[in-house]
């Protein structure tokens, strides 16, 4: 790297790409990403899922939680059967007579919402803590990283179990649990790449100009730790959606009033032995498509943003 | 098998690497031959193809590399077309190899005895005890003290020089007809270098083995070899008896190499250098690969010069403008 006279944030990723002068870094990133057809397909599917979740009330054929329209006589109808209200239940109905397709669309909304909310908050907390550890170093760093290491040495499900045992059920409770499970991953990632950046000349230059801590950390360090952060973030959203579903399946996650995909699967599990597969399988497939599509995007992001990690 | 047949005769060997960036012609038409008991120095800069030549002979060129043409006649048998099983039988028993970096050639998680006994048993159907005894004797032969104890040790418990002795002992286990030594002293201290050099030379002479000594160091070859092959960019540019080539180098590249060796009788004079850098294998200059760096190059050098024998019977050079005595 050439000597930096001005303390501007020099993004190594951008620098590499400057060899291809006709492209902006973002353009290059997009074209690199698009090289993998599978990843593009994953991205399209994921965007569709997000749209479905956002516009759930407009898309769902019925409102599965409107007690006035749900009829117990419709319970456990096979896929394609007609409900009392005259609507066709394309994917069948569940034990309470709700249209599976509608329940899934609403469930998707809850699953994605919980995953995104916990992911975002955990990311913010983890980034702040990780940057603090890397920037201040010394004892702060040691203490923070001890805690991070200790937490990461325990499986996420165990930590979630302890917390939910303590806090009880509820949307807010599970979001808290997922935040506690995730923050350490972000903190470790951010600290790792921030430490590398910290020792580079431009940070030294910024420090010698006596810029404020906050300015150096957020204007100069943060942009450079973004690539690994994006990769970890994508993977974490997928795994937190999976963890929420698991906890809800175990009956210690979301309350019955907030039926996420995991809870729908759990509800259908008891009917499966009697061959009524659709109550459990369809929400499961929806969960699967969501997780796999996010992971496909994440895998590709890792290859594109960090060539060193890919092999 | 007649006595006049050379131990190894390489004819127009071509080994190419098919990489994503294009075809790298690491070895591009190399020919030489070695008689029984003869020592040949194979000299060149890194990337000149000398190591790949060694691996081609022993059949260990890994993909994307491939021997694309030529013949490797080992006591009359063509190794270039031999089956994998036949090659395995020959490797270690008739043709052995010593590698460059002794720190990397022994498996770090296996004890020395494991690595030696398997080498014995790979070719001879003997029990563990016999194999162990042969390994012990082989270690003693290369000057390792208390070999019985040392056999129980792991590689990391040996110094670099000791490890290279172990590799040499392994190479000598089956008294091969040919040993290929790939810069075996480069990674060692100078004092150890001398010892190893002496040891190998002695053992080869005693057992009448042929030896190819691959190196970039002319001074090593000078005291060791009977003849020399100088490689540049995948081709042999000059070959001949050691004294002929060193005393009367004809190829501008060989002259450059010899001139760039510091010596006491040239003290104070600026060291001769070969200008420029060795070309990348992926973007080879046309014609003679050396012409961009050559002081004698002219328009003709855009073609590939044929190998020729202008002076002595065994002294060949690949150049249009060789330094023939009286002409330079």
């Amino acid at each position, binding site marked *: 790297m050439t000597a930096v006279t001005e303390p501007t944030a020099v993004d190594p990723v951008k620098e590499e790409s400057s060899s291809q002068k006709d492209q902006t870094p973002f353009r290059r990133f997009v074209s690199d990403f698009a090289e993998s057809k599978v990843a593009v397909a994953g991205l399209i599917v994921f965007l569709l899922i997000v749209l479905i979740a956002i516009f759930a009330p407009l898309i769902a054929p019925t409102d599965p939680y409107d007690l006035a329209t749900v009829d117990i006589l419709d319970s456990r109808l096979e896929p394609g059967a007609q409900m009392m209200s005259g609507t066709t239940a394309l994917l069948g109905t569940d034990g309470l007579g709700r249209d599976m397709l509608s329940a899934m669309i609403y469930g998707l909304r809850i699953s994605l919402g919980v995953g995104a909310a916990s992911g975002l908050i955990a990311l913010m907390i983890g980034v702040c803590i990780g940057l603090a550890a890397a920037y201040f170093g010394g004892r702060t760093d040691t203490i923070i990283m001890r805690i991070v290491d*200790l937490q990461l*040495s*325990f*499986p996420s*499900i*165990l930590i979630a*179990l*302890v*917390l939910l*045992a*303590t806090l*009880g059920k509820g949307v807010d409770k599970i979001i808290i649990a997922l935040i506690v499970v995730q923050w350490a991953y972000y903190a470790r990632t951010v600290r790792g790449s921030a430490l590398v950046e910290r020792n580079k000349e431009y940070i030294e230059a910024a420090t010698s100009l006596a810029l404020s801590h906050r300015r150096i950390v957020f204007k100069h360090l943060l942009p450079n730790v973004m690539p690994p952060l994006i990769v970890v973030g994508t993977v974490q959203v*997928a795994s937190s959606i*999976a963890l929420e*579903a*698991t906890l809800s*399946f*175990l*009956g*210690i996650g979301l309350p019955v009033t907030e039926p996420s995909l*995991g809870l729908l*699967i759990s509800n259908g*599990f008891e009917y*499966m*032995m009697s*061959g009524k*597969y659709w109550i459990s*399988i369809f929400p*499961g497939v929806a*969960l699967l498509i969501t*997780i*796999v599509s996010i*992971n496909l995007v994440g*895998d590709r992001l890792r290859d594109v943003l960090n060539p060193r990690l890919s092999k | 098998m007649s006595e006049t047949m050379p131990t190894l005769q390489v004819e127009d060997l071509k080994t190419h690497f098919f990489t994503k960036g294009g075809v790298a012609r690491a070895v591009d038409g190399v020919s030489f031959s070695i008689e029984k008991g003869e020592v040949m120095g194979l000299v060149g800069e890194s990337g000149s193809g000398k190591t790949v030549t060694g691996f081609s002979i*022993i059949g*260990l060129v*890994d993909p994307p590399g491939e021997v694309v043409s030529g013949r490797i006649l080992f006591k009359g048998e063509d190794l270039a077309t031999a089956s994998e099983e036949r090659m*395995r039988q020959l*490797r*270690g*028993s008739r043709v*052995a*190899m010593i*590698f460059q*970096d002794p720190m990397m050639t*022994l*498996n*770090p*998680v*296996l004890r020395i005895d*494991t*690595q030696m006994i*398997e*080498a014995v048993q*790979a*070719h001879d159907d003997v029990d563990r005890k016999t194999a162990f005894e042969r390994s012990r004797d082989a270690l003693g032969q290369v000057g390792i003290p208390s070999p019985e104890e040392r056999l129980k040790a*792991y590689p*990391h*418990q040996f110094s670099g020089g000791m490890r290279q002795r172990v590799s040499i002992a*392994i190479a000598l286990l089956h008294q091969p007809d040919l040993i290929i030594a790939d810069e075996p002293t480069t990674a060692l201290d100078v004092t150890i270098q001398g010892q190893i050099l002496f040891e190998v030379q002695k053992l080869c002479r005693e057992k009448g083995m042929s030896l190819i000594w691959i190196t970039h160091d002319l001074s090593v070859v000078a005291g060791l070899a009977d003849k020399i092959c100088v490689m540049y960019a995948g081709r042999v540019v000059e070959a001949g008896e050691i004294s002929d080539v060193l005393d009367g180098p004809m190829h501008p590249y060989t002259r450059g190499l010899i001139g760039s060796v510091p010596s006491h009788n040239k003290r104070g004079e600026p060291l001769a250098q070969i200008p420029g850098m060795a070309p990348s294998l992926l973007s080879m200059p046309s014609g003679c690969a050396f012409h961009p760096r050559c002081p004698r190059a002219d328009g003709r050098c855009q073609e590939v010069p044929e190998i020729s024998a202008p002076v002595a019977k065994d002294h060949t050079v690949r150049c249009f403008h060789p330094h023939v005595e009286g002409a330079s």
Partner: protein
Amino acid sequence: MSVYIIRRLLQAIVVVVAMSIIVFSGVYLIGDPVDILISDDADQEDRQKLIESLGLDKPFHIQYLTFVARALEGDLGDSFIFNEPALLLILDRMPATLELAVASLLMAIVFGIPLGMWAGLKPDSFFSKSIMAGSILGFSLPTFWVGIMFIMIFAVIMGWLPSGGRGDTTEFLGMEVSFLTWDGLSHLFLPALNLALLKISLAIRLTRAGTREVIHQDYIKFARAKGVSTRRVILVHVLKNILIPVITVMGLEFGSLIAFSVVTETVFSWPGMGKLIIDSINLLDRPVIVAYLMIIVFMFIIINLVVDLMYSVLDPRVRLQDVKS
């Protein structure tokens, strides 16, 4: 070496104490178990009696110290629900969980390492690409969902294997085990495979990465130059180098297997510790929750210690560093 062990033991004790405080104070906040234990029509006096008998009226630090003193004697309290010592309750279920976890670990190693080596040795073949695609799926699919699919395919549709429970057990080394009877084995297979899936994927990835790194090392080429057969080069030279990191990680994952057995045991009604803890959380059975978490922490520490020791036995380079330090 002994200095190293003592240092590790001290470290472990610190972690145990820290965890006991965290777990105890966490569970202390759970909520009032009295509400669950007592019938709705009980009066205030009955309520008070129950609180006293459980020691819930004392301040937090007294409750903690009482807990520690008793724990050191091996008494982790009695279950509110079963009126049995919580420790016994858990130890009673532990063999089932251990059997499941060990079976899964074995599956991960037996399936994961050969598949990973294949993928590393022939990275461009179709089979290798399928293996890697499968391992990505193994990483992303939630365990409980795969378990449900297993039950649907192999138990409900095919009818090949039972859908849950433990089957016939026999006594082995003082523990009830399933793997010695045909019926028990058939009950064990699906849950063990389910639990192992994630670890198989992990083993595949680690082995593949290790294989690709090792096969380009000089010592592999040198082994081939000795005329050693390809088979021996792969099975001895490559494998032994890969086994060290893979076994280390797999060993570390044993704790995670025990933690994740919570999910598999629930799906397959496997009568182990995991099912017990879920029931206990739902019933606010505080002593059982605390006991379970303490035992798990303890197991984690032991596992880490054993893995470290194993590592130093397997890799001579590590052993040397210890001797030097």
